[in-house]
């Protein structure tokens, strides 16, 4: 259990270590749609919608009321709203999620809070979904 827990933290650090396109610090309040392509780190307050093709890190001081769409998501703060992760979603110790989640991989650490429904995406299913999306784009 402890090993898994350590892995969770390692994943969060991996997200943190990558190049960041957008950072929302603890003193900032954001209202509206935050739509990006790269990695996003949030430590402040956000309400609206968050969408990125990159990864999302929700820091322990973050308070989010938003629909979220991202690749890998790591949550150490509070999220109220539905979350869709195309890859891995992890809720770290003391992280709180109130809303439905959909992800390929899910990890919830001891001490984390999750209230809502969880829908696990099949790899094949999500690959087919991606293929369909590409076909419609073309």
């Amino acid at each position: 259990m402890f090993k898994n827990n350590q892995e969770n933290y390692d994943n969060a650090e991996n997200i943190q270590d990558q190049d960041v396109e957008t950072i929302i610090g603890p003193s900032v309040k954001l209202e509206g749609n935050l739509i990006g392509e790269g990695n996003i780190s949030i430590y402040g307050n956000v309400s609206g919608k968050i969408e990125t093709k990159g990864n999302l890190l929700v820091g322990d001081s973050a308070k989010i009321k938003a629909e979220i769409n991202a690749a890998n998501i790591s949550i150490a703060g509070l999220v109220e709203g539905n979350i869709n992760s195309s890859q891995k979603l992890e809720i770290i110790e003391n992280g709180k999620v109130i809303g439905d989640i959909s992800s390929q991989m899910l990890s919830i650490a001891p001490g984390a809070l999750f209230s809502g429904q969880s829908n696990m995406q099949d790899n094949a299913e999500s690959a087919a979904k991606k293929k369909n999306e590409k076909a419609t784009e073309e």
Partner: protein
Amino acid sequence: MYFYIIDNFIKEKRYARIYHRMSMQLNDLGIFDDKIQVTKVRPIEDIVRDVLSNRNIEQIVAVGNDSTASKVINAICKHPNQENTPAFGIIPFETSDIADCLGFPTNIEDACSMISRRKIDKIDIGKANKDYFLTSLSIQQSTLKNKGTFDKIKNIFIKGGEIQLAEIQLVLQNFKLTSTAEKIDIINIYNDYWKKQLNNQGINLKKISPYDGLANLLISNNLQKETDSFSDISFFTTKNITINTKDKIFAHLDNIVKVKTPIEVTIKMKYFKALLGKNRHF
């Protein structure tokens, strides 16, 4: 053809030797074509307007400091005819952020050599209301702490001794931000100070480019005096930013020009022709 605008303060005795060295070097390089000295009756804006309207020059070089450079840049960008505008260069006689960002060294001979390379490119330039900036727009609220005694006493009575930071609203493309940050910067070209702050936050400096038509917004808070870096930083990249405040506050463009809120900031993509030095920050 090179045209040099020599700022008024260069006349001072303490700059005589360095001016002589510059003249020698430019003559040696064969690029000391024409020059004009700024005076009180003939300010930079008038000189640039006359030169752009009546003469065919390829390079215009500001000889002076950031203030000289900022005035020349604004005069070039505000000229009604933007076709065939000359490339801007700078020979810094004092520490200059603009020269540093464009890659011109403080050593006068080296700066002259960089000018002679004729490495010219069109780069982005920021516009804040009617004025232009090459490096950054900055709002530094923490300077309020350095106000005069009268203001400090007034603050004690009105706000219980606490210096209140104004709430600043920033409207970006799809969302708005509210912050009482100590420092807000909109960066077009980063300097060494921002390089350190951005590196600390894992922001890839390659993404801050004066060729992408994008403004880089940096909101900083809680300066840690021991490390000289901010513990609370926000960073966004966007095309346009509107800055609103309840009470009017000032922003500085290139640390020189003062602009009052509300401020509309846009980045004009590849609008400004500049001479570039080897050590430029992009």
